[in-house]
C-alpha cells in the first residue's frame, strides 16, 4: 500500500463509520442533511474537485463527473423527498472502494510482475591489485576478472577461469534444472550461482551482456497495444458520452411527454432512473481489466522463459494456426554428433578409437564430434605424422601404422575397397581404412533435439493445423527429420530468400483471422522472422539479429516452449474476451433494467464496482500459467 492508498482507505473507513452512526441520530430536515454531508464530503471531496476541473478544461465526460452528478443528483432527490441520503453516500463510498481496490490490485500485480522480471545485478566483485572491490557492473571493462560468490547473480557475461558450480538459470529460461559449469565454460549474466565460487573473465561490457539485453527487451515490451486494447479505449470514448446523453434523455423526455399528455410527470422517478444510468455508465471495469490481463499474461509468460514484445503479439499468437520451423538449430541441435558406427573388420569401439586419434589435432567440426564420441581419446597410443588432405580427410600414423579417415577419395588413395553399406545414411559418412584394408564407416549428423517430436505433437493437439519445416539442407536429410518428428510439410534446399517467399505464400493463402508463426534462430532467419505474422526467435543467448527481428523470444532453445507460449496466449485472450463480454453484458442489462425502473441505485453500484472487481480478479488469472 502506498501513501495515497492508505489515506484513501482511512477516508473510506471514517465515512462508513460516520454514515452508520448518523443513522441513529434523531434529527430531521436541514440538520439531517448537514449531518450526512460530512461523510459524503469526507469520501468524495476529491471526486467533486476533479469533476469541477474537468468541466473547466472542457473535458467533462469522465468518471469523476459522472459520479459527482449522480451523487449530487441523488442528494437533491433525497432533499426534495426528504428521504434517504444513504444512497448518495453509498454510491460515492462504493465508487471509492472500487477505485481503491483497483489501485491496490494493479499496484500489486505491477510489483509482482516487475519483481519477476527483475534480474538486474546490483554489483560486480572485481579483482584488482588491492583485492576484491565491489563495483557498479556498468564500470567493469571487458576482460576484467570478477568473482561470483554462491547466492550471487552473475553480473556480466564471462568465461569461467577457476572454480565450478551449478547455476540457476530459471529467471532467464524458466528451466528449473541447474546448469553445471566449470573452467572454460561461458556463463551468461542473470543466472544465480548456487554453490561454488566462480572466477570469471568478462567477455562483454555490462550493456551488451545478456541481462541488459533482456531487460531492454522487457522494458520496451507492451508499448505495442493489441486490437482488444484499442477497441476498448475507442469504446470508452464513445460509450461514456452516449450513456450521459441517454441519461439526460431519460431524465427529461418521459416526464415532458407525460406532461403533454396531461399525466403526472413523475420527475423524481425519472431523474432517479437517469442517475442510476450515470452510475452504471462508468467504463472502468473494461479500461482497467483488458490491459491488466495482457500485462499479467506477458508477465506469466516471461516467468516461463517466453518474452513477448507486446500485447499485440500475444493476441496474434493466440490466433496462430500454422507454425513454420527452421530446421537447423531450431528442431535440431545444430551440432554434429556421431549417429551410427558401422565397422567392417574391427569392433565399434576400436573404429571410434582410431578415428578419434587421427582427428586429434584437427579443428574441423567433424573432428570435434568424432573426438566427443570417444572421450578416452587422450590415451597412451602414439600418434605421429598427421597430414590433413584438403577435401579428402586426414591420415596419421597410429601406433606406427597408417590410418586414413575421410571420404571416398581418400579411401581410394589408401587403396581400400569400400563396402557398400546396407543402411540408408542421411548424414555425412566418414570412412576409416588402413593401407589396403577397409575398416568401416561412421555417420555423423545433426541430431534432433530430444523434445522436438513432443513439441510437434503438442502443437497438433493444441489445435495447430499445419506444421511446416523449411531448410537449406538436402531433401534426404529434411525428409528423414520431418518424418521422425511428424511434421506435415517440408520444403528443402531453400536459400534464405526462398524461405521468405514460402512464408509470404503461406500468409497469403491463410484464412482471415488466422496467423502464421515462424520459429527460427539464426542470423539468416531475421528476414523471415520479420515477415511472418509472428516471429519467434529461439535461444535468447543466441543471435542478436534474430532477437531484434522477432516478436517473441524463447529464452532457452526448447521447442516445447512454442506450444506453451501459444497456450499462454490463448488463456490470456480467453480472459480478455470474458472480461469484454461480461462487463459490457452486465452493464447493458443493468442499463435496460434501470431504464425500466427495475434496477435501483444498489444494483447500479454492483454494475459499476462489482463488475470491475470481478473483471480485475479475472484478469489476474492470466498470470498463472505454470500448469498450461
Amino acid at each position, binding site marked *: 500500500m502506498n501513501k495515497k492508498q492508505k489515506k484513501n482507505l482511512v477516508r473510506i473507513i471514517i465515512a462508513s463509520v460516520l454514515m452508520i452512526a448518523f443513522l441513529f441520530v434523531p434529527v430531521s430536515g436541514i440538520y439531517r442533511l448537514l449531518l450526512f454531508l460530512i461523510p459524503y464530503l469526507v469520501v468524495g471531496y476529491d471526486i467533486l474537485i476533479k469533476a469541477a476541473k474537468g468541466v473547466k*478544461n472542457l*473535458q467533462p465526460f469522465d*468518471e469523476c463527473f459522472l459520479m459527482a452528478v449522480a451523487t449530487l443528483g441523488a442528494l437533491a432527490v433525497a432533499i426534495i423527498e426528504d428521504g434517504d441520503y444513504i444512497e448518495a453516500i453509498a454510491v460515492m463510498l462504493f465508487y471509492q472502494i472500487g477505485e481503491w481496490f483497483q489501485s491496490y490490485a494493479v499496484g500489486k500485480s*505491477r510489483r509482482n510482475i516487475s519483481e519477476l522480471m527483475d534480474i538486474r545485478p546490483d554489483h560486480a566483485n572485481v579483482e584488482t591489485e588491492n583485492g576484491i572491490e565491489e563495483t557498479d557492473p556498468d564500470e567493469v571493462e571487458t576482460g576484467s576478472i570478477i568473482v561470483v560468490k554462491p547466492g550471487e547473480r552473475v553480473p556480466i557475461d564471462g568465461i569461467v577461469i577457476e572454480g565450478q558450480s551449478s547455476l540457476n538459470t530459471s529467471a532467464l529460461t524458466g528451466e528449473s534444472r541447474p546448469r553445471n559449469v566449470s573452467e572454460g565454460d561461458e556463463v551468461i549474466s542473470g543466472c544465480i550461482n548456487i554453490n561454488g565460487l566462480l572466477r570469471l573473465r568478462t567477455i562483454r561490457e555490462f550493456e551488451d551482456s545478456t541481462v541488459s539485453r533482456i531487460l531492454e527487451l522487457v522494458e*520496451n515490451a*507492451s*508499448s*505495442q497495444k493489441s486490437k482488444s486494447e484499442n477497441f476498448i479505449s475507442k469504446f470508452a470514448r464513445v460509450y461514456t458520452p452516449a450513456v450521459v446523453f441517454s441519461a439526460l434523455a431519460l431524465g427529461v423526455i418521459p416526464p415532458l411527454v407525460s406532461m403533454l399528455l396531461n399525466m403526472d410527470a413523475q420527475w423524481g422517478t425519472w431523474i432517479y432512473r437517469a442517475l442510476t444510468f450515470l452510475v452504471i455508465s462508468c467504463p472502468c471495469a473494461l479500461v482497467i481489466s483488458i*490491459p*491488466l490481463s495482457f500485462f499479467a499474461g506477458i508477465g506469466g509468460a516471461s516467468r516461463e522463459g517466453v518474452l513477448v514484445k507486446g500485447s499485440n503479439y500475444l493476441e496474434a499468437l493466440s490466433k496462430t494456426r500454422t507454425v513454420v520451423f527452421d530446421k537447423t538449430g531450431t528442431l535440431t541441435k545444430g551440432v554434429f554428433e556421431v549417429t551410427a558406427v558401422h565397422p567392417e573388420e574391427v569392433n565399434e569401439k576400436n573404429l571410434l578409437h582410431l578415428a578419434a586419434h587421427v582427428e586429434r589435432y584437427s579443428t574441423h567440426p567433424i573432428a570435434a564430434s568424432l573426438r566427443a564420441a570417444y572421450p578416452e581419446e587422450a590415451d597412451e597410443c602414439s600418434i605421429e605424422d598427421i597430414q590433413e588432405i584438403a577435401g579428402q580427410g586426414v591420415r596419421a600414423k597410429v601406433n606406427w601404422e597408417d590410418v586414413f579417415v575421410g571420404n571416398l577419395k581418400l579411401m581410394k588413395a589408401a587403396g581400400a575397397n569400400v563396402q557398400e553399406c546396407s543402411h540408408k545414411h542421411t548424414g555425412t559418412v566418414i570412412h576409416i581404412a588402413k593401407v589396403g584394408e577397409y575398416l568401416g564407416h561412421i555417420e555423423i549428423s545433426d541430431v534432433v533435439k530430444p523434445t522436438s517430436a513432443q513439441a510437434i505433437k503438442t502443437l497438433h493437439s493444441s489445435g495447430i493445423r499445419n506444421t511446416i519445416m523449411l531448410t537449406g539442407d538436402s531433401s534426404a536429410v529434411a525428409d528423414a527429420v520431418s518424418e521422425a518428428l511428424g511434421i506435415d510439410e517440408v520444403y528443402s534446399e531453400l536459400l534464405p530468400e526462398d524461405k521468405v517467399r514460402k512464408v509470404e505464400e503461406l500468409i497469403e493463402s491463410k484464412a482471415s483471422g488466422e496467423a502464421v508463426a515462424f520459429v527460427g534462430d539464426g542470423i539468416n532467419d531475421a528476414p523471415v522472422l520479420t515477415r511472418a505474422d509472428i516471429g519467434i526467435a529461439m535461444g535468447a543467448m543466441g543471435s542478436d539479429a534474430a532477437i531484434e527481428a522477432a516478436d517473441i523470444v524463447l529464452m532457452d532453445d526448447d521447442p516445447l516452449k512454442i506450444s506453451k507460449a501459444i497456450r499462454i496466449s490463448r488463456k490470456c485472450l480467453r480472459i480478455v474476451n470474458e472480461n469484454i463480454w461480461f462487463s459490457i453484458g452486465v452493464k447493458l442489462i443493468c442499463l435496460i433494467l434501470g431504464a425500466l425502473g427495475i434496477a435501483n441505485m444498489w444494483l447500479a453500484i454492483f454494475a459499476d464496482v462489482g463488475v470491475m472487481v470481478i473483471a480485475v480478479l479475472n484478469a489476474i488469472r492470466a498470470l498463472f500459467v505454470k500448469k498450461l
Partner: protein
Amino acid sequence: MKKTYKIDVDCANCANKMEVAAKKTEGVKDATVNFMTLKMTVVFEEGADPQTVMQEVLKNCKKAESDCEIFFK
C-alpha cells in the same frame, strides 16, 4: 526520435486520456501510454526539441487529467 518517460497516473482511463492529449501536441508524431508499466513512449517529429515538446505534452495532459505527472527532467 523516440523516448520513453516514466509517468504517474491513477486510472487506466486517465492513462488513455493522456495518450490522446500527448498525440495532439505539436512536435509529437506518435505517443503511447502504458498504464501497467506507467510509461509513456513519445516519437518526436524531426527537429523537435524533446524538452520543450514534453513541457507542452505535460500541460495538455494536465488539462485532460489533472491528476497526472510525467517525469522528463
